[in-house]
């Protein structure tokens, strides 16, 4: 177990706690940067998809994991970002300008949603965002002049650094860079007064309010920032799928996005990456599992969603704190070995806990 003795103020504001962190994150960055050399095209594409999901995951984590506002409609923000980016590219806006424009637009959309959503909490808010997503999906279908309706349209392929953006290695690095920058932005946001206000609101609205946190303002900010991150991911998502059609942004995607936050571990940015890995990799894992099943079962239609559901249920039953929660337990086990006590993370039996009066 490592105890950090702080001898310098810079240690308080530094990004890393100690040299161990520096080493491991540096190694991770090196590995990720070297991935195009190590992986073949298919897995590189999958990893790129995970990065895109993770950027969207940061958005939903800030809202759901840190501010405590649950959204079941984030596919709408992803869609708005993607469509706006696609439309701007079509109008001849250069790539470097189109991405920030689309992000800003999505941020504004998030602010717009926040206004009626401010008074709602819990399940009402979740369903309201779900309804918002349903409406936006219809907008994608009906606003033919921009979205081309059901038929959709293919996203333009701009030139970046003299290469077409569809080049897998280039796109990989762009997504990686965006994820890294978004992560840095989120880390710093969470250390700022705004971020701490978010966490305060999540833990107790009343306490936050009595400490001078302006609830409406900070909730609206959280919505806007969250939508912004998701819209940024939407721009990359548009290039990743290449062709925009309304059915790509349905309720299933919204659920997947929320899933990322919950499975990864609510209230941790590590969890975002774990969640994105989970959601991105699970279809592949299931495809592999399928090969090991007896043919009679493996050939059945509708097996994949079932396995998906089983894995979800198993994770929630055995580790409701998400993958990051499990990771912390494993880490502590080895740090304290052989003194680890299972009761360390045991919470009081919460059978009677209610979220109604929180």
């Amino acid at each position, binding site marked *: 177990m490592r105890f950090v003795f702080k001898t310098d103020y810079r240690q308080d504001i530094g990004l890393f706690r100690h040299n161990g962190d520096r080493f491991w994150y540096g190694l991770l960055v090196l590995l990720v940067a070297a991935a195009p050399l190590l992986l073949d095209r298919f897995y590189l594409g999958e990893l790129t998809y995970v990065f895109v999901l993770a950027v969207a995951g940061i958005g939903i984590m800030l809202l*759901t994991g840190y501010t405590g506002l*649950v959204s079941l409609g984030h596919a709408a923000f992803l869609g708005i970002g993607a469509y706006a980016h696609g439309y701007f590219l079509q109008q001849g806006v250069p790539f470097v300008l189109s991405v920030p424009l689309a992000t800003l637009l999505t941020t504004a959309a998030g602010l717009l949603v926040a206004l*009626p959503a401010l*008074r*709602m*909490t*819990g*399940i*009402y808010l*979740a*369903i*309201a965002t*779900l*309804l*918002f997503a*349903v*409406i936006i999906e*219809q907008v994608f*279908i*009906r606003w033919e002049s921009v979205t081309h309706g059901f038929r959709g349209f293919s996203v333009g392929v701009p030139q970046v650094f003299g290469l077409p953006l569809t080049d897998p290695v280039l796109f990989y690095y762009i997504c990686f860079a965006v994820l890294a920058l978004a992560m840095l932005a989120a880390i710093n946001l969470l250390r700022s007064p705004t971020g701490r206000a978010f966490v305060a609101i999540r833990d107790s*609205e*009343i306490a936050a309010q009595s400490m001078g946190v302006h609830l409406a303002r900070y909730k609206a900010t959280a919505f806007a920032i969250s939508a912004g991150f998701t819209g940024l991911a939407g721009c990359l998502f548009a290039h990743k799928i290449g062709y925009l059609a309304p059915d790509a942004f349905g*309720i299933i995607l919204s*659920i997947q996005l*929320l*899933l990322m936050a*919950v*499975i990864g571990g*609510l209230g941790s940015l590590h969890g975002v990456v774990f969640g994105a890995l989970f959601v991105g990799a699970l279809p592949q894992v299931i495809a592999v599992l399928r090969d090991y099943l007896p043919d009679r079962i493996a050939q*059945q*239609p*509708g*097996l*994949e*969603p*079932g*396995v*998906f*559901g*089983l*894995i*979800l*249920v198993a994770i*929630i*039953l055995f580790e*409701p704190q998400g993958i990051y929660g499990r990771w912390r337990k494993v880490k502590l086990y080895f740090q304290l070995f052989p003194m680890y006590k299972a009761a360390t993370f045991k919470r009081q*039996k*919460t*059978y*009677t*806990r*209610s*979220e*109604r*009066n*929180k």
Partner: protein
Amino acid sequence: MPRRHTERITSPAATTVGRITTTGRRLPGEGGLTEVLQLLVNGLAAGCIYGLIALGFVLIYKATEMVNFAQGDLLMLGAFAAYTYIGLFGLPYWLGFILAVLSMAIFGFTLDAVVLRRVIGQPQFAVVILTIGLGFIFRSAATLIWGPDIRTLGTPFSNSISQFGPIVIPDVNLSIIGGTLAISGVMYGFFRYTKLGVAMQAASQNQLAAYYMGIPVRLVFSLIWAISAGVATVAGILLAPVSLIDPSTGFIAIRAFSAAVLGGFTSLPGAVLGGLIIGVIEQFSALYLDEGFKDVAAPVVALIVLAVYPQGLLGQRQRKRV
């Protein structure tokens, strides 16, 4: 004689799959009072189904603070159970009906006792993900057991109509409205007059206090899941003749969510009221508004109501304690 378009708008299923094809916009009153009444009745029938599903949501939410995203899939399983008893085993309709409701009630009880009880007290949205996962499993299981094909359920009400003055109502719709009235009545009586019903109310208001009063809260929760699954089954069987049964029937529950929040997630009468409102809005907007508005009218109305009444129309106002 009923006109063609009114004949086609008979079911929630018709609105679900967008089978309504009206030619452009119409003005209210163009078809006269008869048409309005006809739409109203059809809307009420559709709304009753939403209301029954929403009732299931509210029962579970009130008691255990869980939002059951698998409610629609329970409905689907219930409809398949009825299909198995009536269509495959050839039992009489009413016997099959009762058997299906009973087996699904047992299923709901077991589900709570084995799976859901473990996560009470966990963060609410862990539970949401859990029920979403269960929904995936149910759909997959239904596909494995009954196959992906569409099934029909023959009922005593199929293919007959009743005429009330100028209004023509398919008997199927009458059965839906009647069934909902019956369920609502039974629920009201149960929660008002029986000991178990009062115990359930107590458990849903304050679990700890209910414990102290000697109410077996866990058992009560499992029973609530049983009731909720039973109600979903009734909704599924009533819906079956108009919407056909297949593993994705359960997606109708997404519309019922609008109904539940509209009425207030903590109010049983609110759930039914919300369902009726959504059903009627869907029918009228399908006929009188431009095509694009058909699918958004209900969510838009629900959002507006929520913006004004954040706890729904009949929901309890929650006050926070410090």
